[in-house]
């Protein structure tokens, strides 16, 4: 039993924290978010720090890291509200790393690790949850390759992506009819309606109209995409939980600082017991959420039973979603009017937490999955 980061993890955590404190402060972040929604310089730094290749095998210029190694990174990203498409890129690359051919791995992974390439995770999150069983994208075998048609909505990071991992139904064989494809974001027939999201990320509805793909665009075997999707999304959910923990910590720290300094009636408002007790509950929420993020990151890679892995990730996401909602709402309330303004970072953290609560399935979705997978004696 050991809850500490090991030396390497700690060094990494320290360096990313230093980077964010120094080079990604709130003003910088504001600029990045309002301009391109992404900074090439920051992306380069992330690559230099080894963050982009972290979870890949050393064979592809990675560091062989797992979710636990990424946990401190994600906590820092959450605290700093990094808008760069780090999670989409790392996640999309997982499909290649886990299921791709040797050629795909060689073509993609080192380029991602070096920062040359950004992957966009396809997402089809109608009803707040990824529903892999109802892909509207459609791949048809055409000669040696495939033709891809359909639309994917709210694909986070798509506007910046070079490559897209796209899931598409390739047969009507239910769970066994979904395949994964690697698609160049600039390929003929790919269109994007891009927008800014409420938490200041970039996303797009991505259209595919008769997109011609070679046979080598297929990731893994045809019809076997679902298990990969579930595994990779669970992996991404664990990382998202860690990101939430970092953002919650920031919201708590900012709120505590605020109620210690804001004075009314001659005393700091933190002297009022009703606020003290609510602040305490926010801190407890964070501790409990952090425990579940630790669990999620520790178990998502090591748990071999897919059902148990899904159950545990759902448990984590339930607690994280509840904590996101609780802390974000209380942080704004305790900040009073100031927390409502664009100029306070906490209002941005509020928005990110609101969205994390729903990303990869909201609490209701995971309560349903948790119940379905739980074995009752």
């Amino acid at each position, binding site marked *: 039993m050991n809850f500490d980061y090991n030396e390497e993890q700690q060094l990494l955590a320290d360096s990313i924290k230093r980077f964010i404190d120094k080079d990604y402060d709130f003003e910088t972040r504001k600029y990045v978010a309002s301009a391109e929604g992404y900074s090439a310089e920051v992306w380069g730094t992330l690559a230099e720090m080894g963050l982009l290749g972290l979870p890949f095998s050393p064979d592809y210029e990675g560091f062989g890291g797992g979710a636990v190694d990424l946990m401190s990174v994600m906590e820092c990203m959450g605290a700093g509200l990094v808008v760069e498409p780090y999670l989409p890129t790392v996640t999309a690359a997982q499909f290649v790393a886990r299921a791709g051919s040797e050629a795909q791995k060689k073509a993609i992974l080192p380029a991602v690790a070096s920062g040359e390439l950004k992957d966009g995770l396809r*997402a089809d*999150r*109608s*009803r*707040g949850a990824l529903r892999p069983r109802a892909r509207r994208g459609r791949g048809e075998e055409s000669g040696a390759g495939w033709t891809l048609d359909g639309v994917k*909505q*709210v694909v986070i990071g798509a*506007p910046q992506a070079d490559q897209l991992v796209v899931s598409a139904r390739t047969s009507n064989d239910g769970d066994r009819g979904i395949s994964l494809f690697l698609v160049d974001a600039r390929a003929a027939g790919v269109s994007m*309606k*891009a*927008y*800014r*999201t*409420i*938490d*200041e990320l*970039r*996303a797009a509805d991505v259209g595919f109209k008769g997109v011609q793909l070679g046979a080598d665009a297929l990731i893994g075997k045809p019809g076997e995409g679902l298990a990969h999707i579930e595994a990779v999304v669970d992996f991404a959910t664990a990382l998202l939980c860690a990101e939430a923990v970092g953002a919650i910590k920031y919201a708590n720290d900012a709120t505590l600082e605020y109620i210690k300094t804001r*004075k*009314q*009636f*001659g005393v700091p408002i933190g002297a*009022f017991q*009703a*606020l003290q007790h609510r602040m305490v509950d926010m801190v407890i929420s964070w501790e409990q959420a952090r425990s579940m993020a630790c669990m999620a990151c520790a178990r998502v890679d090591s748990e071999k039973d897919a059902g148990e892995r899904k159950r545990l990730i759902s448990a984590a996401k339930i607690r994280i979603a509840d904590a996101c909602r609780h802390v974000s*709402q209380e942080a*704004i*309330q305790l900040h*009073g*009017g100031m927390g*409502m*303004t*664009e*100029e306070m970072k906490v*209002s*941005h953290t*509020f*928005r990110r937490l*609101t*969205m994390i609560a*729903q990303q990869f399935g*909201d609490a*209701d979705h995971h*309560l*349903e999955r948790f119940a379905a997978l739980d074995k009752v004696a």
Partner: protein
Amino acid sequence: MDLSYSGEELAFRDEVRGWLAANLPADLRDKVGDHEHLSKEDLLRWHRILAKQGWVAPAWPKEWGGTGWNVVQRYIFEEECGYAGTPPLVPFGLAMCAPVLHKFGTEAQKKRHLPPIYNGDLFWCQGYSEPGSGSDLASLKTKAVRDGDHYVVNGQKIWTTLGHYADWIFCLVRTDSTAAIRQEGISFLLIDMKTPGITVRPLILMDGGHEVNEVFFENVRVPVENLVHEEGKGWTVAKYLLGHERMNTGRVGISKRELTKLKAFAARQNKDGKSLMDDPRFRDKVSRVEVELMALEITNLRFLDQMRRTGQPPGADVSMLKIKGTEIQQSLTELMMYAVGPQAQPFKPLQADDGFDAFAASLAPRYCNTRKTTIYAGSNEIQRNIISKMSLGL
């Protein structure tokens, strides 16, 4: 005990309802329903329609344009407006400055200011809060120093709602910094926003909207004729205004409209091949808000009935309505955001011509914006303090 409106009250309601159906412009109604930004012109347009009908200031004395309606009629009118989806009547002139002038104003002040307020010719805003003084209003620092026939005002106000639209501002200012009781050094001034030395700086809220401002005063010269009540009696005026709160604090009509919309919208949303309203997890959240709103409406009517019979102005009751009403508004916007799912996330298209579901995209900003309701107009914590002290004697 009879929870229904009387025959006369029903007739009045039907009259209002019928008139609203005929006179509320469809474009304004749709803007309100879709949570679109309302321009100054939108607000004034509706104001003037009501003014023309003679219904813009029901609570005013009859000689100044009041309707003579009793509290129940006024409540019915406001709730019907809320349910129909009219633009709001901006309260700063009609419901805040005007009552103060009726009570404390000189004849000259009334004659000068009331008609343009009534007719929607001049737009007012409120200068109360300051950066260091929110809940603790009496700690305000903006100073007004007498200089001949003028006060010279220096300082800063914050959270000035629609200050960027306003022609006039009413302000609490400190005219005596030496008063032993700090409440006694405060005065109530009317200030023309065009006076040199006034700067309005937008405060953008997290939904991207511009509704509040900071207002800076730098050697702003205000004629002494714009002092309301006596110098140093501003706190009396402020307290009168607080007690004058209206009984529709719960905003039941608006919430009923939003609830209806939420249920209709969620019923059309698909979850696992079924209507989202058939999902018990989502459904129960909606049901609990609906039940809370049913209860609030009756609670509101109970208080109103008591007020009508006893003639007593509402006391801490208003605080309760404010707490529950705002909690319900927040729940409704939150559920609406959940109902739309991930489409709630998109905020603004990067290309102006990109197809875009503006209504879906308005829901998350609206959820963000509605967080303000438990903070403004006396935070819900302050409301709990008031009930604790006034009703419970704690």
